[in-house]
């Protein structure tokens, strides 16, 4: 129970369904006081108090579980390491994979509980598959797509069948004070929302060049390649406009020589994506199959031919994507308008390739 409206309603629904429910708030920082106070994070003392009050109203026992060390090792350190390697991690996804549905689930099972209930917007079909929520704007199946079948079996998502605005109404009806609490959007462990500053603070600053990918011309400088992400357009600080007057985007990041390459949007075009070892939520496939893939949270969906090969997945997109960042997850869906698209598999994006107009492969858009 984060202290937000979703987990509060999820807990209430689980109680109503007849389960013996215990509320747990995760302490993710050893010094909660240092976390954000104004904006909504997931780990402030205020949030812990809100979660406790929701548990009181629902009528369930409430405890705080200290996961600060695990969270730091598995999520925060991973966040640093990924950026340092020129990749763009998704810490919420990592937290689901390593904390909520791993450390927390394992501990709960050992202590005699049967499942972890969360306020995520996703559905579990009768077939045991993970499916998109009915509310397309809130669907969180992407950040849950990294779960293994065993992790999924131990989880419950009571909100998947309800639009968010109705969840708020329900919270109000249930007398939960968090009904009107704003949604959290930012990364919970970055107190002021300044990701670039957070990374600089840990990884340091180092002067490097921003280079035109096509001409090799040095266009400007930066103070650390780790603060950029593929497809980024703003915050490059370039004084010289492009020849055609069009905006320039980050095309590649090379941490080894602290080099950032920029170019036109067209150069971000990606047609083929490779992932690392996949996790199969549905039965494992061996040959190529047609599916839809999603490349970032709340991102667009691309029809693709997906081929399991060489220990990873290759997705050949049927329409181009732009600005695909390594480190994000590729989640493979089986479209199903009636029951909700089902997650078949996921993998972490290692590399993305574009096709030139002539049909020959261009250089990597995201470095390996």
């Amino acid at each position, binding site marked *: 129970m984060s202290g937000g409206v979703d987990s509060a309603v999820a807990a209430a629904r689980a109680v109503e369904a007849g389960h013996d429910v215990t509320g747990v708030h995760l*302490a993710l920082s050893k010094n909660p006081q240092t976390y954000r106070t104004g904006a909504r994070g997931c780990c402030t*003392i205020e949030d812990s108090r809100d979660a406790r009050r929701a548990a009181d109203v629902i009528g369930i026992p409430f405890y705080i579980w200290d996961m600060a060390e695990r969270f730091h090792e598995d999520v925060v350190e991973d966040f640093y390491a990924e950026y340092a390697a020129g990749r763009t991690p998704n810490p919420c996804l990592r937290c689901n994979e390593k904390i909520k549905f791993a450390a927390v689930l394992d501990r709960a099972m*050992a*202590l*005699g509980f049967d499942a972890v209930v969360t306020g995520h917007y996703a559905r579990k079909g009768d077939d045991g598959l993970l499916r998109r929520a009915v509310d397309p704007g809130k669907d969180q199946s992407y950040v849950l797509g990294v779960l293994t079948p065993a992790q999924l079996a131990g989880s419950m998502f009571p909100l998947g069948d309800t639009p968010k605005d109705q969840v708020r109404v329900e919270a109000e009806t249930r007398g939960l004070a968090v009904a009107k609490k704003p949604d959290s959007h930012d990364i919970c462990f970055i107190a002021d929302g300044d990701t670039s500053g957070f990374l600089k603070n840990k990884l340091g600053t180092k002067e490097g060049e921003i280079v035109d990918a096509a001409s090799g011309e040095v266009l400007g400088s930066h103070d650390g390649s780790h603060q950029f992400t593929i497809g980024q357009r703003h915050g490059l600080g370039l004084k010289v406009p492009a020849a055609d007057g069009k905006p320039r985007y980050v095309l590649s990041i090379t941490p080894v020589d602290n080099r950032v390459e920029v170019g036109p949007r067209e150069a971000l075009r990606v047609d083929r994506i490779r992932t690392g070892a996949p996790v199969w939520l549905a039965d494992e496939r061996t040959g190529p199959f047609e599916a839809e893939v999603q490349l970032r949270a709340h991102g667009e969906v691309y029809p693709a031919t997906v081929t399991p090969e060489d220990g990873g997945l290759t997705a050949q997109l049927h329409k181009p994507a732009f600005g695909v960042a390594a480190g994000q997850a590729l989640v493979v869906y089986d479209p199903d308008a009636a029951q909700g698209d089902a997650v078949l598999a996921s993998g972490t994006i290692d590399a993305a390739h574009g096709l030139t107009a002539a049909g020959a492969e261009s250089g990597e858009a995201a470095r390996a």
Partner: protein
Amino acid sequence: MAYLDHAATTPMLPQALDAYVRTARALGNASSLHGSGRTARRTVEEARERIAEALGAKPGEVIFTGSGTEADNLAVKGIHWSRRTPERNRVVTTAIEHHAVADAVAWLGDHERADVSELPVDKLGRVDTAALAELLAEHGPRITVLTCMWANNEVGTLQPIAEIAEIAAAHGIPVHTDAIQAVGHVPVDFAASGAAGLALSGHKLGGPTGTGALILRRDVKAVPLLHGGGQEREIRSGTLDVPGIAALAEAVGHAVRTQEVESQRLALLRDDLVARIRAAVPEAVYNGDPESRLPGNAHFSFPGCEGDALLMLLDAAGVECATGSACSAGIAQPSHVLLAMGTDADDARSSLRFTLGWPTTKADVDALVAALPEAVRRAKTAGLS
């Protein structure tokens, strides 16, 4: 439900609750000069006399406060401030104090630039008096105040307060003792102890929460924390809580009067609890001094289990106990008391405190012993995450 957390708080004694309600119905500010005021003042002064008599103090030495924490802060900071000079700016504490003392001393160090010395304890949690003698030989003239608890709130170990006060007296150093866990549970005689200050709290002995007292020798000056109407020898301003004070006196009087019989009853129950836990969970480690400890305290480490997990499982089984001192965000930290006793960090996190009080019966112990083995089995599976 079996409540085994009486060191956290214990229910009000019926006679204390009666005294509270009776007094709360009456009108009067104890500082007012008219009839109602005098009646209220009389209640306060009679309470002061009863508490003084019960604890071997003079009525004029009793200063009512709003909590035990306040009494500790008033003594430690107040005596330090009144005695400090450019040459004398050192506070002596122990490694096992409750936060009410430990954090007050730390604040004096961080914020007031006081020098701080911390006395070590042995593996049973007893303050090392040889180390104290050495410390005083070296720093004696530069020490403002020495503070040492009478009985430890976590592991229950009793401290040699009289011996410590005697060593300190030779150097003219006033000793404050946090006796919040001790009063009403073990014999406490303020005058005989040689202490300069002694803190007690109402809700640990059957009185109301929000009441406490500092017993402070008349020849010891303390700079006040609160300034205002000049109540309580101008050391503690604030309108006196007449019903709270009346109930506190009732509780102290009863607890001290029945202490000998009640402590024997509790020690027997406690020893039964300890023996049965050892039989049920042979690997359990009994912490603290096995002999010289609070009669209602049993403190164990359960190797391989997290105290948090055990507490939750026992709670679900209807048995309420504590892991140690709770912290503001509810995050369990390894107990500083166990760490000071030389316990390793994992064992320190695997501990539970069971404390018995006046309503405790054999049925409570039975409930614990029945629930514990399954809780330990599950917590061990969950491990130290």
